[in-house]
Each structure stands twice: as C-alpha cells, then as structure tokens.
C-alpha cells in the first residue's frame, strides 16, 4: 500500500495520463475537459439567446460522466489513498512564496490565502477566485482547448495550433506568477 499512499512520481502520472487519452480515443471520444464548460452553458439554457450554445449537449454526456468520475476519483484519493496533505516543494519555492505573502507553503495541499472559506467569503478573495475562473473559461474556449485538449492531445498529434496555445499558456502563466502574484497578496 505504501506505493499507493505516497505521492506519485512524474513517471507514474505521465504514462497514466497518456493511458487515459488512449482509452478515451479507444472508446470513440476525445480527451478534453474544458468543453464541458460550454455544455454547462447549453444545459443552463444559454442556447435560447446565443446560437453558439444551441447544441445537442446530450452528445457530450460521456464527458459529463467523465467529470463525475474525476470528482469521485478526487474523493477516493483524498479519503482513502492520501494519509498526508503535505506537498514536498522545492525549499526555494517555499521561500519565494513566503516573500510574496503566502506562508507555510506545502504544509497543506492548497494555500489558505486563496482557498480557505474565510478568504472565499471576503470581497477580495471571492473576486480573485471568480476572475481566475473567468480567465480560464474564456481563455480555454477562445484557444479551443485547455491543458488536456491542447497540451496533451494536440501536442501528441503534432498540431501547430496546440503548440501556439501552449506557448500562450506559458506566457500567461509566467506573467501571472512572476509579475502579478507578488502584487496581489
């Protein structure tokens, strides 16, 4: 059980993600999580005023079921497979985070400065979470995919649009991490 309960190394996780992509193709579908966000809009009735969302969302039911599985997997992992929530970060990362106002990095799975209930209920904390989500959702649909659809499937398929998107992901991520995060906390 030790093998399961300790954090998994990259050379375990990467091949499993490749296997997941393979299985979804084998089952006649395609790995891509952010398209579910559009499905949510369609289910919510956005098709009534925007044609873009006027789709037969039932075709995407498999992907909603996949998401349901992902939630279940997160639950199984958290409650039965993970005795510790400590993330063994590079000590330099811990120091860098302390410098920008995020204390005790890695002692818990997520920073309280962003994800605690108290933060969520503050005006600033709520808007940070909301705006981060809006950027992810808008950006993913604009680019035509997220990490799964572009970085994993698209790059595997040697597609130029995916390479450009992934370069974009990194430009945005680096700007946020190096220049904007230090100003927020």
């Amino acid at each position: 059980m030790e093998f399961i309960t300790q954090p998994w190394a990259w050379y375990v996780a990467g091949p499993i993600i490749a296997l997941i992509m393979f299985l979804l193709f084998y089952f006649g579908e395609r790995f891509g999580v952010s398209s579910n966000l559009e499905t949510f809009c369609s289910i919510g009735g956005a098709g009534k005023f925007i044609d873009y969302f006027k789709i037969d969302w039932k075709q995407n039911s498999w992907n909603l079921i996949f998401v349901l599985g992902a939630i279940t997997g997160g639950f199984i992992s958290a409650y039965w497979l993970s005795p510790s929530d400590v993330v063994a970060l590079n000590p330099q990362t811990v120091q860098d985070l302390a410098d920008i106002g995020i204390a005790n990095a890695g002692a818990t799975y997520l920073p309280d400065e962003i994800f605690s209930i108290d933060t969520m209920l503050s005006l600033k904390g709520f808007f940070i979470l909301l705006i981060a989500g809006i950027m992810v959702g808008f950006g993913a649909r604009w680019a035509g995919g997220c990490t799964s659809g572009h970085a994993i499937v698209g790059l595997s398929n040697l597609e130029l649009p995916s390479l450009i998107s992934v370069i974009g992901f990194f430009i945005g991520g680096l700007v946020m991490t190096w220049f904007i995060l230090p100003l927020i906390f």
Partner: protein
Amino acid sequence: MKYIKFFLVGILFGIVMSKAEIISWYRIYEMFKFQSFHMYGIIGSAVVLGMLSMYFFRKKMVKTFEGNEIHVAPKKRGLYRNLLGGILFGLGWALAGACPGPMFVLVGKGVVSILVVIFGATLGAFFYGLFKDKIPH
C-alpha cells in the same frame, strides 16, 4: 451502461491528478518558477507516449472498441485565437492553480472555494460565446 467506462476512466483521472499533486496550487506555482521537474516530467512523458498512440491510430493498428478507425480531428487554426486565448488561460491557470480538469477533482477533495472558480470558468465560457464575434481569431 455504455457510460460506465467513462465514469471509470474519470475515476482514474481524478486519482492520478490528486496523487501526483497536479491539483495542488503549489505545484503549478513551482512549475512556472522552474523550480521543479515534476510537472514538466508529467506533461512531457504523457506527450511522448501520446505521440506513440497517435502513430498507432494513424497506421490503423488500433481502432475503437467498436472497430471504427480513430481519426483525430485537427484543432481550429488561428494565431490570435490560440495565442491570445492561450495567454488569458495561462493567467487564470497560474492564479487559480488549476486548469479545468483539476478544478473538478478538487471538488471531490472537498475544497468548497473551488466552486467559485468553476462558476467563474462557466461564466467565462458563456462570455466567450457572447463576445466571440467581436474578438480576433
């Protein structure tokens, strides 16, 4: 019943995302600071093995379980779409420390505040549908 296989693959996805700490905000920060090989190793090895899968699909050595050929449809082209959409996505990814897949896995972990991020992401997709004719692609 035809959906159960997607549920099971989803469970595997949720477990690997949490066990490899891909859903930890800190791991994303560490990646963008170039202070750990972890995330690069994960994405890199997945892509290398993914290329191998694509080779089998193209050579028709692997078909779907129903015997159909696997055709990987190309992504939509457009420099503005991919670059600007990508940059916006990256800004959100590094701030939330989660891309769409991990967001849902975090729900299973019991992180209540991630629901605000998911709501925002859905709103973002809605805004894209609303403004897509007014932005460059």
